[in-house]
């Protein structure tokens, strides 16, 4: 119930392509869904986040798509660049709780 399932585990994309990372959850009490980007040896950096009353949110090349009925959300990275190569984590927060529950991460490699 408290899990967030993330896929794929790893992803290789060519420069200029679209990277898509998916997450699914069971807990309908989750009310906040952030995505974090992590470079090796660094802390997770907040990339973009969405609340369940919105189906899509776009910030620059990054878009979250949210499907409340399917309990799924995804991160789309348009025009992927080698500098986007990092590990991406989805997460979720339950209403009334302080903790973020993280997915297992997706290692993205963007080839030049």
């Amino acid at each position, binding site marked *: 119930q408290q899990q967030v399932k993330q896929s794929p585990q790893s992803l290789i994309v060519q420069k200029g392509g679209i990277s898509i990372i998916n997450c699914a959850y069971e807990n309908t009490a989750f009310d*906040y869904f*952030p995505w*974090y980007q992590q470079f090796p*040896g*660094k*802390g*997770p*950096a*907040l990339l973009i*986040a969405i609340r369940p009353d919105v189906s899509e949110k776009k910030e620059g090349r990054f878009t979250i798509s949210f499907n409340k009925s399917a309990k799924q959300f995804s991160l789309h990275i348009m025009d992927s660049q080698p500098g986007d190569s990092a590990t991406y*984590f989805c*997460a979720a*927060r339950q209403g009334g*709780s*302080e*903790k*973020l*529950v*993280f*997915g*297992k*991460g997706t290692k993205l490699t963007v080839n030049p």
Partner: protein
Amino acid sequence: EPEVTQTPSHQVTQMGQEVILRCVPISNHLYFYWYRQILGQKVEFLVSFYNNEISEKSEIFDDQFSVERPDGSNFTLKIRSTKLEDSAMYFCAGRQGTSYEQYFGPGTRLTVT
């Protein structure tokens, strides 16, 4: 842009020793957190702290762990008697009262030998 800072960046300690990990949160943050990440695994919540008390903790945060905000700026995580399995990256995070957005520090790598 203000950032969360953590010291030390790397701490090596022997099993059974006490360690204190330090964090300086962003000044206008009100909620503070510790998370850990075992090498290659997902980030796991340890504890949240608000208004000078623990507001939530995970099953990982047992009696060996404690948190403190001793002087209104620093936020510390103490592990009383370290175990080999405590080896991980420990991240401090914080957020404002008006937003759910949690901002993470660069982490402290704890190695228990």
